[in-house]
Structure formats: C-alpha cells, structure tokens
C-alpha cells in the first residue's frame, strides 16, 4: 500500500532526534499555553511563529502542529477544575467535567479528558492519513445552504440541553442567538444593537460570555454557598474501573469520528463538534439525565470530538490550501513564510512535509498522554486551595483571559455583566448551556442562511433541493421529534426502566443539561 510506505517515510522524518525534540517541545509549550486563561491554540501558534521562522520548514511545522493540538489538549484543564473554559472548544467539557470535580473526582475527570483527547487525536490522524485527499470534496460540498442546515441541526440540541423546563431552555437559546447578532452585520455592514459602542462593532466575543455565565457566575454561587460543598476525598485519583472504561469507550469512539468530519468543514470546527457530540451522547445514553451532573461520558464525548476536529481541520489546509479555522489561518500564514505552499499539490510535491506531519501527530499524541497523566494529580490539587483564596484567583483568571484577547476594559465590564446574568439565570433555573449554544451557532446560522438566499436570489427551496442540506434538516426534525416519541414509548412501557439515581443526586450544580423531572412522570 502506497500510503503505508509514505507513512513509514514520514516516521523516518518525524523520528529524527531533532524532530522528536520539536514534537516534545511543541506539545509541552502548547499544553502550558492552552492552560493559561484565554490563550488558545491561535495565540499559542502565533507566539511560537517567530521561533519557527528560524527552523527548517518540516521541523517548524511539526513543532507548530504540536503546539496546536497541545493547546487544545491543555484547554480542558481549566474547564474541569474551575468551570472556566479557556477556549471555545472546551466549553462542553465543563458541563460534566466541573460537576465531577466538585464531587471530588477531578483527577478522574482530567484523566478521562486526557484519554479521550488522545483517542480523538489519534483517530483524527488516521482519518487525515487515509482519506484526506478524498475528503477535500466533502469540504467543498458544504456551501452556505449546507452550513445553514448543519447549524439548525446543532441548534436543535437546545432542547436536549434544556433540562427540566424546555420553555426556559428555549428562552436561553433565543437570548444566545440575540447576543450573537450584536455588531457589524457581516453581510451588509449595518450596525446592529451596538448602541454607539465601538467596542461592540465586532460583536460580543464568545469567550466573554462563556467565562461570565460559567466561571464568574460560579464564583458568585461559591460565595452564596459560603464556600461549603468544596470537594473532599481523593480528588487526585486517576483510577478508572473497568465499568467506567467500558462506559466511555462508545462516546469516545463516536465523538472521535464525528469530530473529525465536522472538523473537515471550514468554519465549523472544534466547538461545534464538541457540542454536537455532547448532545448526541446525551440522547443515546440510557442515563442521559445525569448528563450535566457529572457523567463521565459527558467529558469523554466533547473531549474526543474537539481533538479529533482539530486534526480534521488540517484537511482543508493541507489539501486545498484554505484555512478551515482561525487557528489554521495562522498556521497557513506561518507555512507561507516558511516557504511551504499548502494546496492540492502539497502531497505530490512535498510528500515529506505531509507524511512527516502526519507521523509526528501520532508521536505527539502519545507524548501528550505520557506528559499529562503524571501531572494530573498536581493540577487537581488546585482545588485544595482554600476557597477564600481560590475565589479571587478564579476572578483574575477570567479577567486576564478576557483582557488578553481584546485588550479592552469595556470587555471586562461585559464579563462582569455576563457573570451577573449567569448567576441570575442559575438562581431562577434557566440553563446556561443553550445560551452558549445560541451564541456559538446563532451568528453562523444567520450568515449562511443569508448567503444561501443571496445566491438563490431569495428562493427558499434551495435548502431542501440540495441533498446534503435536505438530509441535515431532516435529521434536525427527527432530533426535535425524537424526545417526544421517546417519551411516548417510555410511557407505554411504564416505569419498568431502571432508575438512574446514582451519579448526580447530591450534586447541587445544575448548569448545563439538567434532568427533566417530568420525563418519567406518567
């Protein structure tokens, strides 16, 4: 097989002592930067670019891609420990990661995240290796109409993320979409809801909303709890038992595959992938109602998806030379300066480059796992910090995260505003997850709808005459109706189903997906 001999050649490149060192350095630096507030893969790569310019192109790209998936890997740490997602792709991880940490299982949550990331990353690389060239046709087959359908499918997750009260969930989701529409309209350059503030022209940065309604709201809640309910016990234990391994294997596998394909689509990326995978698993799981209260599947699914998507986003970059995400755009810029021109000819003209990177990704993922597992107990100890001290530190984390992205004090006020909003939502049982989902998908949904209608000159049938779009919209309809049918079926069967009452019973944290207490009510 041709790919195999190429891959062996690639390992030859990647395993040279020099490149091995760069893989190691790359993932190490990436992980560390990824853990810092607000610094995601984009900042991590931009920061390493000056260093990369002094290196030979293959080593440089090997190091930079290591920084990339290292940063995604590191991003989940603060999501789990502090409920403070540092990057968009790890927001869904906090839904169950943080409740787990509060139950005293931070170590377990972190090690599941690490393992799921490893598997997601590896599956992604296998995909990149085997099907990258043929996938470029999938990439381009997604036009505005198809993106619109995908976003609608994503938004149907609002229902499953709503928990007890679907009305309240829908309200959250609607407000989320409203937030997404603030700023200069990308289609017409008209200002919307900016109220004269230049700072709002570019819209409300997603990270501000996430840090506000999750991390800062949690700080307020911590204070109302008076610091009680902090974790106890063996927070640093990494152990997973056999049952748990079996439990997460399904979600991890599905998340990896789903994530890769979503990652291949430019503009969708890790965040959308992690949300889709989370809501898919919540639907599939028998114990779906404990999602959001510390279900380990709720950590495994988004983590495998976002890492796999990160690798998937290399497909359009390598095969078309077009960046599929902000991060790959930075990477593309770096490659150009290094004299590498990604595009359809890369694999034939510079096979060393392509296969060297692929091979280095296998190695990088292994290095990440080996590097991170021993550090987990150390990270988990963060939670042993007395709450009186931890609380101001979390605030600093949020403030630095927000300021470091925009360098604007205005955004700090926004952050505080969203913190208060998040707190009030919690106090009144409004779920925060649909809000975030609305913020992420709302803008994309509107943009692609309008692009599609512009192309079709206003003809709405464009959404159903295009096959991919029609299929996705049908899936969206099914996923909206399925819970209704599921409820009917369950009612018919009576309450013979086993009650899942273990996990979340005593957990006070209701953010994310909450149980519908009515589901099994006759």
């Amino acid at each position, binding site marked *: 097989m041709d790919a195999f001999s190429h891959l062996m050649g690639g390992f030859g490149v990647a395993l040279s002592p020099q490149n091995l060192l760069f893989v190691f350095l790359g993932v190490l630096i990436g992980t560390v*930067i990824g853990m*810092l507030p607000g*610094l995601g893969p984009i*900042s991590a790569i931009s920061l390493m670019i000056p260093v990369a310019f002094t290196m030979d192109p293959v080593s440089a790209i090997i190091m930079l891609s290591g920084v990339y998936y290292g940063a995604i890997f590191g991003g989940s740490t603060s999501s789990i420990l502090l409920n403070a997602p540092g990057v968009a792709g790890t927001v869904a991880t906090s839904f169950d990661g943080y409740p787990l940490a509060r139950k005293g299982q931070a170590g377990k949550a972190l090690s599941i995240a690490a393992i799921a990331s490893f598997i997601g990353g590896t599956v992604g690389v296998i995909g990149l290796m085997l099907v990258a060239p043929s996938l470029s046709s999938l990439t381009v087959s997604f036009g505005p109409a198809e993106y619109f359908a995908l976003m609608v499918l994503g938004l149907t997750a609002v229902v499953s993320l709503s*928990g*007890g009260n679907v*009305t309240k969930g*829908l309200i959250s989701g*609607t407000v989320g*979409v*409203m937030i997404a*529409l603030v700023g200069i*309209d990308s289609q*017409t350059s*008209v200002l*919307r809801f900016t109220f004269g503030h230049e700072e709002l022209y570019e819209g409300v940065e997603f990270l501000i909303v996430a840090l506000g309604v999750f991390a*800062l709201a949690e*700080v*307020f*809640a911590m*204070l*109302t*709890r*008076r*610091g*009680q309910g*902090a974790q106890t016990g063996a927070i640093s234990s990494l152990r997973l038992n056999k049952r748990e391994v079996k439990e997460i294997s399904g979600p991890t596998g599905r998340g990896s595959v789903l994530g890769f394909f979503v990652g291949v689509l430019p503009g969708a990326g890790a965040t959308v992938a992690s949300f889709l995978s989370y809501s898919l698993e919540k639907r599939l799981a028998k114990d779906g109602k404990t999602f959001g*209260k510390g279900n380990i599947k709720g950590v495994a699914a988004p983590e495998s998806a976002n890492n796999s998507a990160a690798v998937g986003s290399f497909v359009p970059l390598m095969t078309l030379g077009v960046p599929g995400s902000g991060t790959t755009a930075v990477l593309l810029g770096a490659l150009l300066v290094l004299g590498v021109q990604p595009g359809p000819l890369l694999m034939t003209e510079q096979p060393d480059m392509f296969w060297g990177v692929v091979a280095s990704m296998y190695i990088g993922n292994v290095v990440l796992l080996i590097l991170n597992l021993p550090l987990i107990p150390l990270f988990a100890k963060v939670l042993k910090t*007395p*709450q*009186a*001290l931890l609380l*101001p*530190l979390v*605030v*600093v984390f949020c*403030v*630095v995260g927000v300021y470091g992205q925009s*360098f604007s004090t205005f955004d700090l*006020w926004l952050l*505080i505003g969203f*913190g208060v909003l998040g707190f009030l939502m*919690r*106090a*009144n*049982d409004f779920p925060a997850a649909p809000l975030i989902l609305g913020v992420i998908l709302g803008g994309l949904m*509107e943009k692609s709808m*309008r692009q599609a*209608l*512009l192309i079709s*000159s206003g003809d709405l049938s464009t959404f159903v005459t295009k096959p991919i779009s029609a299929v996705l919209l049908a899936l969206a309809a099914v996923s909206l109706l399925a819970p209704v049918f599921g409820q009917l079926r369950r009612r018919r069967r009576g309450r013979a189903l086993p009650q899942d*009452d273990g996990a*979340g019973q005593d*957990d*006070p*944290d*209701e953010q994310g997906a*909450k*149980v519908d*207490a009515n589901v099994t009510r006759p």
Partner: protein
Amino acid sequence: MHHFRFTQRKLAVALGILAVAYTVQAYRIPEFTAVETPVQPGSLPRVLGLVLFVLSVALFFQKPKAKEESGPVPKPKPEPVSVSELVSKPEPPGGGPVGQQSAPPIGRFSDTRLELAALLAAIGLYAALFVPLGFVLSTALFVSGLAWHLGYRRHAVNALVGAGTALGLYFVMSEGLEVALPMGLLPF
C-alpha cells in the same frame, strides 16, 4: 441564593418587556438597499423578538413546577433535583459547616446579598483600576484584599500569593508570551 429567585410570572413579565424592547430596536435597524439582499439585517432580529415574546407568554401561563410554585422559597425541602440544594444551603455563615466540610465559611457579612454586593464591587473596582494602576498592582491588591475579606487568615501566605500571582502572570504573559498586560504605575 433564594433572594434572587423570582416568581415565574415576574420573570415572564420581565422577559416580555425585554422582548418588546428588542423588537422595537430590531425595527429601527435600517433597511439595506445598496446591494441585492433578500434577507435584511433586521429580519432575523424581528423574528427573534417575536419568538422571545411568545416564549415569555408561554412561561407566564405555564404551571410552575412544584418546587418553583411560589417563587422565593424561604426554606425549600432538600430535593434531589439540582438547584434546590443551592437554595437550601444554610445562608447565615454562623449556621456553621454542614456535612463533611471543616473549612470555615467564607465571607464576613451575615447577609448574603451584602456579601455578593461587596464581591461585585470588588470585581468592579478591579476592572476600573486594571489599566490605571496596571496589572501587577491591581491584581495583587485584588487577590490579597478579597482573600483577606473572605476570611483567609494566613496573612503572609496571602500577601505572597497575591504578589506572586500578579508578578508571575505578568511576566509569563507580557514578557514570555508578548500578551501585553497594562503596565500602569510600575516601570515595567
């Protein structure tokens, strides 16, 4: 947290007002006529305003769940379902630790509302002084000051953590990673 719980009807009315205000704003978004646009920039906002209004009406007439029945529940029974536990937490810090926890409760005021207002003011002050004072000074003051207020008693450690966090983050971000945090009064 129960101070911040409102009856479902009150919330519905508030959301309804928000929806109306939003829709009015949405209708004030100018039409775009220069270039072909089948969907106007104001179209989706108008729909969203309407949707929010309908949802708020639905919320108004929805029968509240048992635990939400009468809005502010002074002492709800502990329930398995989520938020109730937050609400049922003993509010006055004097109530003492409940359960396994042995750490002293954080905060100084017996009224949680006052405590929250103080926290909010502290964060606001931090944001306001972030640029004028610079990252290092404002952060050190915020961390140590707030931790002291919340009842962290090891003052030396506290001062050290405040200064250490501020300096450490500053050097990592500004020097190491070239994410320029405000310098403020200090010369670096």
